[in-house]
């Protein structure tokens, strides 16, 4: 049981770190603001969520578990789309020609 928990933690940690690096790499690498926004708002959120889940499993295993990590993960998943939306609105005010044409 413990070995299974450890393997799950390991997988979550490696996946989380990989996705967080991917998000920051996209932020540093892509050439347009609207492309760059995808990396941090999706990949980084998923990566940090995985690490928080791994931390919760670890502290449960080490006998001092609490729900704090879930709280942080919930808050992060709640706020990431809101901040991305606000950033897009700010960017669209700066570059109005980047907005797609309305349908019809």
């Amino acid at each position, binding site marked *: 049981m*413990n*070995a299974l928990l*450890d*393997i799950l*933690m*390991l997988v979550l*940690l*490696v996946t*989380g*770190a*990989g996705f*967080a*690096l991917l*998000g*920051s*790499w996209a*932020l*540093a690498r892509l050439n347009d*603001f609207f492309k*760059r*926004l995808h*990396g*941090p708002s999706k990949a*980084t*959120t998923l*990566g*940090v969520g995985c*690490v*928080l889940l*791994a*931390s919760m499993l*670890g*502290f449960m295993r*080490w006998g*001092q578990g*609490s729900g*704090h*990590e879930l*709280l*942080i993960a919930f*808050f*992060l998943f709640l*706020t990431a789309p*809101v*901040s991305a939306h*606000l*950033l897009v*609105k*700010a*960017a669209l*005010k*700066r570059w109005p020609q980047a907005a797609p044409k309305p349908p019809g």
Partner: protein
Amino acid sequence: MTAGWIDAVLPWVAGVFVLALLLSAWRLLRGPSLPDRILALDTLYINALALLVVLGMLLRSSLYFEVAMLIGLLGFVGTVVLSKFLLRGDVIE
């Protein structure tokens, strides 16, 4: 036996997060426009939060969650305020 693996892997995970921090710091310094810099700050604080959580796992201390939660709350408020300022030219109208 497998608990040793976790302790062996955690410094590498922390290293990956430091790399992610450096990449977003580079975008923060370089970023050609203001929305880019705000986005870089957003990524920076989220990566710092994850780094703190990894540090808490490494030190087996649950004290770092409070810090991580505070960073999350205040970072979100900062992003919203900065975007709002770009959007309206004022924070509270």
